């Protein structure tokens, strides 16, 4: 019914991506994602896709796990691959019943798909190779505003609590014969179940705050994780960022 976020399930493996400093990893891969997403032509995008796959292989994450996370993007990308060939004007490939498939449209549809898939693949070596709470702490070290950092920490932590809580509510409903259908009665019942979840979480939120206060919470988190950049981190980050930038610069020289 509701699944756990298990993005950092394999964060305890050992690979070059796992050893990469979390701060440098976030910055380098974010730049690379932006770079690939903005590539204007298919050849460059395919180079980007190839690089993304190589980073994924280097991260040693199991293929099954990777595919489970990558598959969602297809839902968004498939309509583009199907529709774009028929709606972009250009050289005709073939036409039937007034629908014209164009070469330009097909290329553009594939370009969108390749960029989207590369970006999703890159999220895995970036996020799935570090424990998520450490990723949040890396964000704090990268000067993300304190309020947002704390919201990330609390929210992430309580997602697990509420998944369990909702599963329990759901089991209780199922035990009393409730079946999920798309009708007004079922939707209203779900509404009430969710309402209960919200009321409970609000009350829990108040208790959490009181408990935190009594232990000296002042709004600024202390962290026990120590980050240290090594030479290899600098080299790896430099290489990734250099590659990201050159994807945009080299074509300029090739054309002139």
């Amino acid at each position, binding site marked *: 019914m509701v699944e756990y976020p298990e993005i950092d399930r394999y964060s305890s493996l050992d690979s070059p991506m796992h050893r990469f400093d979390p701060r440098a990893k976030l910055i380098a891969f*974010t730049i690379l994602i932006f770079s690939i997403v903005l590539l204007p032509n298919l050849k460059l995008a395919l180079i980007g896709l190839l690089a993304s796959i190589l980073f994924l292989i280097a991260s040693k994450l199991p293929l099954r796990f990777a595919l489970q996370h990558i598959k969602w993007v297809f839902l968004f990308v498939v309509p583009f691959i199907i529709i774009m060939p028929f709606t972009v004007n250009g050289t005709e490939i073939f036409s039937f019943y007034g629908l014209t498939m164009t070469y330009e*449209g097909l290329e553009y549809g594939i370009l969108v798909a390749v*960029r*989207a898939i590369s970006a999703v693949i890159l999220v895995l070596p970036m996020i799935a190779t570090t424990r998520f709470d450490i990723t949040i702490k890396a964000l704090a070290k990268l000067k993300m505003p304190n309020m947002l950092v704390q919201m990330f920490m609390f*929210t992430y932590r309580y997602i697990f609590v*509420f998944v369990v809580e909702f599963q329990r509510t759901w089991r209780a409903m199922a035990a009393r014969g409730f079946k999920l259908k798309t009708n007004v009665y079922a939707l209203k019942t779900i509404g009430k179940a969710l309402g209960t979840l919200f009321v409970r979480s609000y009350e829990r939120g108040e208790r959490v705050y009181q408990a935190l206060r009594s232990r000296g919470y002042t709004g600024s988190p202390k962290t026990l994780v120590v980050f240290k950049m090594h030479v290899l981190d600098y080299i790896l980050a430099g290489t990734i960022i250099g590659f990201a930038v050159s994807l945009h610069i080299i074509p300029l020289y090739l054309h002139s």
Partner: protein
Amino acid sequence: MVHISDGILSLPVLAAGWAIAIALIAVALWWSKKKGNIDEEIPKLSVMTAAFFVASLIHIPVGPTSAHFILNGLVGVTLGILALPAIFIGVVLQAVLFQHGGITTIGINTVNMGIPALIAFCIFKWGNKRGMMLTRKDLSAGIFGALAGGVAVFLAVVFTAFSLILSGKEAFSAVAILLTVAHIPIIVIEAIVTGSIVVFLLRVKPELIGGLGGDEK
């Protein structure tokens, strides 16, 4: 599907999304800081954000496929202006934990869901004030809760369609239309569920309605 993936939108749309999102979040946090003790709000706000996040993981069968709740209208009705940071956190976590939506599109997706949430908040507050005079409290809350929930999703879809069309490719409009049509059943479902949640909250925990940092405490 209201969260757009990476690789589709153009640079100006992405940049505008980030700029508007950051500005709105900064205003929301500044405003609630001015109004009261934000340290006290943060744990509560986060716990509510987590609850909304979990609710958005629930899949509902719609015809041959399934859809998940968006609930941005409810986030607006309950959190008020603090809906913006809450939705931002939700969008980021959806992108990095489940790969729904993208990294570069975090800004625009926050805007596309956040602004409709604020509009839903206004509709609910405005309508309920008038509605309560005319009819029963429950009925009015149910009607305007449902309206807020439906409108929030509808606007989120419209905003998303516009971000696609603004990205320059005239050909995106076909995808935008498809997206809008596909969401009609979801708008109805969200309206019913939001309405029933609002009525429930009004009976059980009325202080949850009207913004955590709001004035109706």
